[in-house]
C-alpha cells in the first residue's frame, strides 16, 4: 500500500468541528464551499472565535451550525433569524451570523427575513440558494425557476420565484450581495465586509445541488452547474439592475447577474435606552 501522509493540521481546524466530519452533504454539493468561506472569514476577522455565533434553521445548509467550532445554534425551520435577533440584542458584542438555505430563509422564514431587514438588525445572513429543498429530496421551493422540475412539480414549476437580492434590498438590508460557489474569494471578502457593516446584511450564494435539483433538471453534476455559473455570470458594478434582470433560469442561456446590490447606511436597530431623572 502506498503511504499517504495526511496533513496533521489545517488552518481552519480551530474553526471547524473536525470531530463531526464527515459531513452529511452529497458529492457535488456547494454548501461546504460556502461554509469554508465563512470559516476563513471568521479566521481573518481578527475577532476571537468565541465572539462569533452562528445560528441555522433546518435543511442541508442548516447543518452548518453543527460543523462550526464556535457557539452554534441549530434551531427550528425558518426561525434562525429571530433566534439570532434575540442573541444579538441580548449580547450586542457578539458577531451574529445566520447560515441557512433558501427554503428555510425565504419560504417558511420569509416573514422574519423581510422584517429583520426592515428593522436593520445587526445580523449577517448567509443564504445558500440551491433552488430546491435538498434535504427532503428535491422539492420545488420559493427560489425554483418557473418551469424547472422538482419532485413536487413533476410537470414543471408553475410558480415564479423570489429573487432574493431584489427582495432584500427592497426590504431595507444595508448590504446585499449575490455570488456563486465559483466565487470563493468574493464570498469570503464579502462575509468579512458584512462583519464590518452595521445593520442587516444578506449574502446569497448560488450553489449546486446535483442530487436534489440537478437530476430533475438535466444538470449532471456539481461541476456542470459550476461551469454554467462560470459561463453566464455577469458582474454588476453599480447594483442598478431591475427585478427581471436578477431572475435566474439555469435552463435558459440568460445571464446570471452577480455582485453587490446594496451597500448603504440606513440606521441599524438599537434597543431604546431612556434615562429617567
Amino acid at each position, binding site marked *: 500500500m502506498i503511504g499517504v501522509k495526511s496533513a496533521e493540521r489545517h488552518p481552519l481546524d480551530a474553526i471547524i468541528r473536525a470531530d463531526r466530519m464527515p459531513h452529511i452533504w452529497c458529492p457535488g454539493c456547494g454548501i461546504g464551499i460556502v461554509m469554508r468561506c465563512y470559516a476563513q472569514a471568521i479566521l481573518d476577522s481578527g475577532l476571537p472565535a*468565541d465572539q462569533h455565533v452562528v445560528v441555522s434553521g433546518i435543511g442541508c445548509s442548516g447543518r452548518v451550525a*453543527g460543523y462550526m467550532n464556535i457557539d452554534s445554534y*441549530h*434551531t427550528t425551520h425558518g426561525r434562525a433569524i429571530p433566534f439570532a435577533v*434575540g442573541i444579538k440584542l*441580548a*449580547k450586542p458584542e457578539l458577531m451574529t451570523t445566520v447560515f441557512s438555505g433558501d427554503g428555510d430563509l425565504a419560504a417558511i422564514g420569509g416573514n422574519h427575513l423581510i422584517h429583520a431587514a426592515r428593522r436593520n438588525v445587526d445580523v449577517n445572513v448567509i443564504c445558500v440558494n440551491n433552488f430546491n429543498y435538498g434535504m427532503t429530496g428535491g422539492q420545488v421551493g420559493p427560489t425554483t425557476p418557473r418551469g424547472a422540475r422538482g419532485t413536487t412539480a413533476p410537470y414543471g414549476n408553475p410558480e415564479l420565484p423570489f429573487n432574493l437580492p431584489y427582495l432584500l434590498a427592497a426590504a431595507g438590508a444595508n448590504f446585499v450581495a449575490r455570488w456563486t460557489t465559483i466565487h470563493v474569494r468574493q464570498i469570503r471578502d464579502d462575509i468579512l465586509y458584512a462583519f464590518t457593516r452595521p445593520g442587516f446584511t444578506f449574502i446569497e450564494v448560488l450553489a449546486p445541488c446535483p442530487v436534489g435539483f440537478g437530476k430533475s433538471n438535466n444538470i449532471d453534476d456539481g461541476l456542470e452547474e459550476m461551469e454554467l455559473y462560470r459561463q453566464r455570470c455577469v458582474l454588476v458594478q453599480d447594483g442598478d439592475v431591475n427585478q427581471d434582470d436578477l431572475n435566474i433560469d439555469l435552463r435558459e442561456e440568460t445571464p446570471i447577474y452577480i455582485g453587490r446590490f446594496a451597500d448603504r447606511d440606513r440606521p441599524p436597530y438599537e434597543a431604546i435606552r431612556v434615562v429617567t431623572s
Partner: protein
Amino acid sequence: MDDRRVLTGKHFMNGDEACAEGALAAGCSFFGGYPITPSTEIAEHLARRMPEIGAVFIQMEDELASMAAILGASAAGSRSMTATSGPGLSLMLENLGLAVMLEIPCVVVDVQRGSPSTGLPTMPGQSDVMQARWGSHGDYEIVAYSPWSVQEMFDLTILAFNVADRYRTPVVMLCDEVVGHMIERLEIPPRDQIEIWNRKKPKKSNNGRYDPFKVLDPDLVPPMMHAGEDYRVHFTGLTHDEHGYPDMSAETHHELVTRLVNKINHNTEQLIRTESYWLDDAEIVVVAYGCTARSAQRAVREAREEGIPAGLLRLISIWPFPENLFQELGVKAETIIAAEMNLGQISREIQRVIGRPVQGIYHAGGEMIPPDTILEAIREAAQ
C-alpha cells in the same frame, strides 16, 4: 438606572402590569412579543419600563418570532419572557418544543381568553390548560402556574423565572382575562427580599471540551452555558448526545427524552404549589384555579356558614399535576367538584387520578362562573 428595576412599595394596578413588574423584579432583561388581547398591557407596560433600566424590549413580527427571539436572548444569558393569549400560544408551541429540547429557560405568559380560534378576545377563558400541557409535538412535561390575584401575577411571575432557570425549562403562566385586567392592591417587597434562583453554571473543563448536556446532579438538570462564554457550545433541536452533537440512535433518543420528562417529574415537590381552605375535615371538596377560584372560595365560605363541610383546593400550579395530593383527596373526600372555565380539562385529569367521576361545573368561557352556581352544586352534593 437599575434602581428603577424593583418598584418597592404599595401600588394599585392591573394584573397584566403586575406580571410585567414581576418580570422586572425577577431580573428579566429581554422581552419579545406581539400584541394580543388580553395580554397587551404586559407588552405596553414593559415597552415603557424596560428602556428605563437598560433592558431590551422588542415587538416582533409575530408570535413565532417572539418565541424564537426570547430563546436566543436566553441562550445568550438573559432572563427572557413573552406574553400572549391562546391564538398566539398556538404559534409559540413550535419553539416551546425547541425550548424543551434545548433546555433553554424562558417564561411564556398566556392571558387566556374565550377560545378556540379568535373566540372572545376581550373576555376570559381557561381553555388553554391542555394546550399548554400537550400542544407541542412529542413527549415532554411543562410547568405552568395559574395566578388568582394581581399580587399573584407579580409573585408567580418571579417564581416562573426562578423555576425556568433552576430547571432549564420553559414555564407557562396560565393567567386569564379577569386576573389580567382587574385592578387590585399590589405590594412589591424590597429588592433584597426577592428570592432569585440562578442558573447552574458550569465549571470550566481543563481540556477545552465541555459537555453541555451532561448531567452531573441527581436533579437531572445540566449546567447552562451561554453564547459568548467561550465554551463553543452546540445546541440542536435534533436528538443530541451529552456533548450536544446530533446522535440519530434510538438509544440516545430514548435516554434524552426520558431525562427531559423526568427532570420535571422527579422534582415535582419543588414545582407544585397549592392552597387549601377548610380542607381538613371537608367532605365536599371544590377544586378551582385562576379567577374561578375566587368564586369557589366565596361559595365554600358560604357553604360553611350553612354548616356544610365543604373545602377548597386551589391549584396554584396546574402542571405538573399534583397526583399524590389527589390520590389522598380521592380517598378522603366524598364528593369532588371541579369548577373551571372550559369544558372539563382539569376535571378529566382529576378523574384519571382518583378513578371515579368528578362533578364538573363547566363554562366554555366569556364570563366568570358565579359563586352561586358553585354554592348550588355544593348544596346538592350535601343532600
